[in-house]
């Protein structure tokens, strides 16, 4: 490579003019200026704000590779390297993103330590960032029983302080079993559970007398039930809740008291039971229960301890009874729904599975193919199964139908059989290739 000549690049660039428009007979600069002003005046209000914003903003030029390392070129007014990519109009490169230095990290750590040191020791156990520590700690200390000890979504150590989250005693003791009926009856049971220990827990003579009175009343109630020779009261809450609802609708023909347990203790239960029964689903049941309770307080003890009635069987028997009573209504419903849908009853599938249908067709497809052997084109057929699983009808198309082979194909496909299903019929398209 031989240098042709020496030249001054900067000098050459610096005196590089533009083409003079006037050289080619164009208008003079003054004429151009007048034209520009006229155009500007006529288009004064034509510019949209978005376009003007874009034009008056910094040009959208992409940063060059290595531009971030241009600190040595800060000749006149050195700018921090960190601020360089933030210039408007320049896309920020990922490598230029501000990263905290070790010094900054150390400073942050020391700030966090100082903040933690100023906090109470209890709050220091969980170590969230200082910005979020204070409100969480306040919430914990000010309302230990109502608020959750650890706030989800915030900085959290994950440790629950059981002392802070301990629920009220009534909430802890009155949690019934987890089915719906038990939940319905829960408000009724809860006052009894709370009221029962109250007299005994006092330890006074009046408490003893009250306990004795309750026991006597319970015995009397059991005796009355025994003498009435009625079916034994159901032991589970599910059985109690349903008759209660029935009592309301049928003007209370059954004297079975479902929930007057609370009425054994007159003072608290008389006020608590109606409150507990004010929930909307039990609006009907609660008045009946209170009415029964006010008429006769004896069944209360019977419900509390039904085994004392003497007619109650073993636990297994009672469970069988309960299960049988619960299952009986559901079984006829299933029987009633099946005939409406398909008429076959039982646990039949709505239609044969695809695999079942394919297997059935595959078993007879060989015979059908034999009918169309040598045919240049495939034939088609539609096999309709009845709900019993046997072939109801076969329709043949294509080459077999056009060449008098439909009878052969039909008889071959008639042998297919699928499992019984619920639908009246089920049709499977079949392509018979020779």
């Amino acid at each position: 490579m031989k240098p042709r000549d020496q030249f001054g690049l900067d000098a050459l660039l610096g005196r590089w003019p533009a083409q003079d428009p006037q050289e080619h007979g164009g208008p003079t600069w003054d004429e151009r200026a007048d034209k520009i002003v006229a155009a500007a005046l006529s288009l004064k209000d034509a510019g949209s704000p978005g376009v003007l914003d874009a034009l008056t903003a910094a040009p959208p030029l992409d940063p060059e590779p290595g531009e971030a390392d241009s600190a040595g070129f800060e000749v006149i007014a050195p700018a921090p390297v960190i601020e360089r990519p933030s210039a408007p109009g320049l896309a920020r490169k990922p490598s230029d993103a501000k990263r905290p230095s070790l010094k900054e990290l150390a400073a942050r750590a020391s700030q966090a330590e100082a903040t933690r040191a100023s906090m109470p020791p209890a709050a220091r156990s969980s170590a969230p960032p200082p910005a979020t520590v204070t409100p969480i700690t306040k919430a914990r200390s000010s309302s230990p029983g109502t608020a959750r000890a650890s706030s989800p979504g915030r900085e959290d150590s994950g440790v629950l302080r059981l002392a802070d989250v301990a629920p009220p005693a009534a909430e802890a003791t009155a949690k019934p079993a987890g089915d719906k009926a038990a939940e319905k009856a829960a408000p009724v049971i809860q006052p009894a559970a709370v009221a029962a220990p109250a007299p005994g827990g006092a330890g006074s003579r009046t408490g003893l007398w009250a306990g004795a009175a309750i026991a006597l009343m319970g015995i009397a109630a059991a005796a009355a039930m025994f003498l009435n020779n009625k079916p034994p009261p159901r032991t589970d809450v599910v059985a109690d809740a349903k008759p209660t609802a029935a009592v309301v609708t049928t003007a209370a023909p059954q004297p079975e008291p479902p929930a007057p347990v609370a009425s054994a203790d007159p003072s608290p239960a008389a006020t608590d039971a109606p409150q507990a029964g004010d929930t909307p689903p039990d609006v009907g049941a609660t008045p009946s229960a209170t009415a029964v309770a006010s008429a006769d307080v004896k069944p209360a003890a019977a419900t509390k301890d039904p085994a004392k009635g003497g007619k109650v069987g073993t636990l297994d028997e009672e469970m069988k009874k309960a299960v049988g009573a619960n299952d009986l209504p559901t079984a006829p419903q299933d029987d009633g729904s099946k005939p409406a849908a398909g008429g076959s009853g039982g646990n039949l599938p709505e239609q044969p599975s695809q695999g079942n249908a394919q297997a059935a067709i595959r078993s007879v497809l060989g015979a059908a193919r034999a009918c169309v052997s040598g045919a240049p084109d495939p034939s088609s057929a539609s096999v309709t199964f009845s709900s019993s699983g046997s072939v109801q009808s076969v329709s043949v198309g294509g080459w077999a139908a056009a060449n008098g082979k439909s009878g052969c194909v039909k008889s071959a496909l008639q042998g297919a059989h699928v499992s019984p299903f619920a639908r009246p019929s089920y049709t499977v398209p079949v392509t018979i290739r020779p």
Partner: protein
Amino acid sequence: MANPTDRELVAQAKSGDSAAFGMLVRRHQRRIFRLAFHLVRTGAEAEDVTQETFVRAYQALDRFDGRSEPFTWLYRIAVNLSLNTIRSRKATRDSTPSDDPRIEALLTETRPSQGNDPAAITQQKELAAALCDGIDKLSDTLRTTLILVCIDGVGHDEASRILGCPEGTVAWRVHEARRKLREYLADRGFGGEAG
């Protein structure tokens, strides 16, 4: 007011004085045209960009807040319009055509020093073509910065305001553009540089 400043002209134009705006146009249209000419590389498009620059500036007069000089603001609009023109072109050319008006402009400028030596004129023409080609090979970023600083003579501080980047970045871009341009010219036999 015999020779009002640009800021005064802008203030008068804002208040509806079209003559003041006309004076602003006459004062800056050549430089705007020269800048646009080197950016968009054709005279016709440079004229369009020049007119569009002043039309848009007049529409956006109310947005001019006076934080920069008016001609900086005009340059920024001109650069944006030139880049829009370049990027809206459907095809990019691989090499500079022999009738590129920039070559003629450079030859017009350098011809008196070359006299009537045909060899020198031919060599100067080849250098101009290689120079145009080398500049066109640069990225938009380097090319725009090089044209602003080295051809149009805008200072680094003013270029940084026009381009919205620090002066150090402008200096680095100029250095990088010149380095690449020299390399390109050296590959084509124009390796020596006189001071």
